[in-house]
């Protein structure tokens, strides 16, 4: 990751390391204000990593989508449906089948999104707003709003509740997804195709990139990541519920944007998005530890986000 940063700096693209400064600032802030309140205790730090795992996983997928200058609002609903499907399948079948079933929810929705976006040329914002509403509806109907408990210990251990030594399996999953995502994003022709499509669509076409296929691919990636996040939620909570992921879309997008991926596409980093998601997690965690009222937590969160990003921008520009 170090040589990753330095490489970018050589490329004069300070935008890509702003997020690390923000991260440092927020960490510093809480370390000072909460130094005696267990913020820096290993357990708490592991808590943060565990709690942000699902957001991080979705952020990896969303990084591809936003880099290609598209957006995916359907991830929240996919989380819920995939978790429910996996939980239901698990009643009668094995883990592998359950996971595949869950993921296929994402795959199907993502393909649908992608095809409509690239063939019918409706803005992905509208398409995914629509599918999101459809999928949420299905998630509500599939069990008629009832939560589905998961008793399969192995499933729960592997996806979310287990620890290997001091390390939560959720964190391990995040690592895996991050590494795979980062390599695909930075080191494969596909990753370049995504960046090119987002950065200058016609230039990409002129260079012989099938931009339509790329759009289908990125929509599918973010959807499948969301489906996997749903499975992790199910494993973490030992059950699934139609409300899962409802509130996550904005958090995920925020994480990706804080991570330095540009809405206009063509620019971004996977690792940055993960850091962004951890920053959001630190905020929830730290502000709660401060013992602030819910209202004060909201105010503080807003101020810190804006301040952190502004300050890091300054930093980054000044050198």
């Amino acid at each position, binding site marked *: 990751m170090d040589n990753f940063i330095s490489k970018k700096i050589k490329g004069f*693209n300070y935008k890509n390391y702003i997020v690390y400064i923000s991260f440092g600032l927020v960490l510093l802030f809480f370390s000072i204000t909460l130094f005696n309140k267990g913020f820096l205790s290993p357990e708490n730090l592991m808590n943060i990593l565990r709690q942000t795992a699902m957001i991080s996983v979705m952020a990896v997928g969303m990084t591809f989508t936003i880099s290609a200058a598209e957006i995916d609002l359907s991830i929240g609903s996919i989380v819920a449906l995939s978790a429910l499907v996996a939980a239901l399948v698990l009643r009668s079948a094995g883990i592998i089948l359950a996971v595949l079933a869950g993921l296929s929810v994402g795959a199907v929705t993502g393909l649908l999104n992608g095809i409509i976006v690239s063939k019918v040329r409706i803005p992905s914002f509208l398409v995914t707003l629509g599918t999101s509403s459809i999928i949420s509806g299905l998630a509500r109907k599939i069990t008629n709003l009832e939560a589905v408990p998961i008793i399969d210990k192995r499933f729960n251990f592997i996806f979310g509740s287990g620890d290997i030594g001091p390390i939560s399996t959720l964190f391990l999953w995040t690592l895996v997804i991050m590494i795979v995502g980062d390599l695909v994003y930075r*080191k*494969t*022709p596909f990753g*370049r195709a995504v*960046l090119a499509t987002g*950065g200058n669509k*016609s230039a990409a076409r*002129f260079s012989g990139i099938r931009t339509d296929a790329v759009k289908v691919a990125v929509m599918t990636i973010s959807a499948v990541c969301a489906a996997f996040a749903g499975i992790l939620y199910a494993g973490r909570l030992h059950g699934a519920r139609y409300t899962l992921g409802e509130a996550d879309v904005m958090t995920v997008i925020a994480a990706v944007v804080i991570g330095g991926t540009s809405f206009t596409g*063509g620019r971004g980093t996977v690792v940055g998005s993960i850091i962004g998601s951890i920053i959001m997690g630190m905020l929830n965690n730290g502000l709660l530890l401060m013992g602030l009222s819910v209202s004060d937590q909201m105010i503080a969160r807003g101020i810190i986000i804006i301040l952190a990003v502004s300050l890091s921008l300054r930093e980054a520009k000044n050198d």
Partner: protein
Amino acid sequence: MAGMVKIDFEENNTGIYALEAIDIHKAFFKNEVLKGVTVKVKKGEVLGLVGSNGAGKSTLMKIINGVYKADSGIIKINGEKVYYKDVQGARASGIAMVYQEFSLVPTMTVAQNLFLAEEPKKGLFIDDSTCIKKAQEAFKDFNVEIDPRTYVEDLSIGNQQIVEIVKALIRKPAVLILDEPTASLTQKEINRLFDFIKRLKQQGIAIIFVSHHLREITDICDRVVVLRDGRVSLDDYVKNVEIQQIIQAMIGRKVTTYEYIPPKTNITRKQPILEVRGLKWRDKINDVSFSVYPGDIVGIAGLLGSGRTEILKNIYGLYRPEKGEIIVNGQILKINGPWDGIKHGLFLVPENRRKEGIIAGQSIRHNILLPVWRRLKKRLFIDDGKGKKIATDLSQKLNIKMVDTEQYVEVLSGGNQQKVVFAKSLVTGPKVLLLDDPTVGIDVEAKNEIANLIRNIADEGNGVLLVSSEMEEMARLADRVLVLRQGKIIRELSRCKGDIITEETLTEAIQL
């Protein structure tokens, strides 16, 4: 060198055609662009393709490269019919193209752009170090200093153009299409490019070369094809034709080109309309001082990256000078941005059409009138009737090839887009006109027209500061020329002081 051209042309005379595009038809909506065009190019032959703006050159090239689908017509490679529906297909048949419009990804590095869609891989992953190494070699060949790791958006327009060329060359094509590759390059780079083209000829590569600089055509091409109204109006060996014949075929009449257009009344250089004193900006401009007088057309000549653009941008308020003063009509200006510049009668025609010139997704009218909406206000609201008239008149004056002024600029041909950019400067009626390569990609006829317009503006008692990479344009317009090297004025040529200002003298002045 001409001799050498002939020699290997003769060699390939008998060879079969590397590429044939036969009876190509293409219409965009109702706008018939190509009405049965046939072009053929042999191995090791350089085919020059010319035609006035909007004649259909780029369209034809894009059809050959698989960007557009022809309505009818066939394409043969090495005598065999080929069908491909996209750029990959064309590339598979060994075709590579330098597009006229910017076609790099600004947010990616130079190296990433060069190898886009065919990156060398080591195992599963892209081998970046090889990319960078190959890129560095390619640039050394071209002897330009471009770091493959810089982001394209940080490059000057000239350097971006070079990257586009290298990107095509690096693909080692059998057929190479160059659509106005020399636009916004200076003679230095152009010579390099021509050396390359000659090398490729010897390797038996077929080349189609599009340009509005007929001199370049006669220098480098074996055959020339002229497009007019969507048909081929001339197809002959360069050795058999005169430049005037080509122009005749292009526009149906002769035009006298290239000689100096003198001011109507000679200029009295007392009170300067624009004065620049001790200008300094970063390491790109050092202590630059000069004056422009009413009626004066002052040229700034220099190599790529010598800082010409930066001088203009400092005057115009786009960059903040670190030292020095900008004085207009004897008044020291405190300029915070172009809006202030424009208030004081300045206006800049930028060199970067796509980025700084046009709003591609909006109509010709909206683009032309952009600087003057305020002036078009009648009480609260804009008088669109008046605006339409102004826009239409200007478009006709510059004879922009279009359906109407409501057409989107993005669908205009490159040269016509440039005319739109230039038109903006006319609506503002500037006192000091700053021109940075104002006629990139504009055809011979329109260039004449614009040259006269510029002279008229000066004759009305305004000042003109002209940056151009085309020395013939400089020679045609400039009364005085400041020669710039690495941000310093190293010499001033002035007709009134008896200096001769011609293409040759200028070229030599900036080189040494």
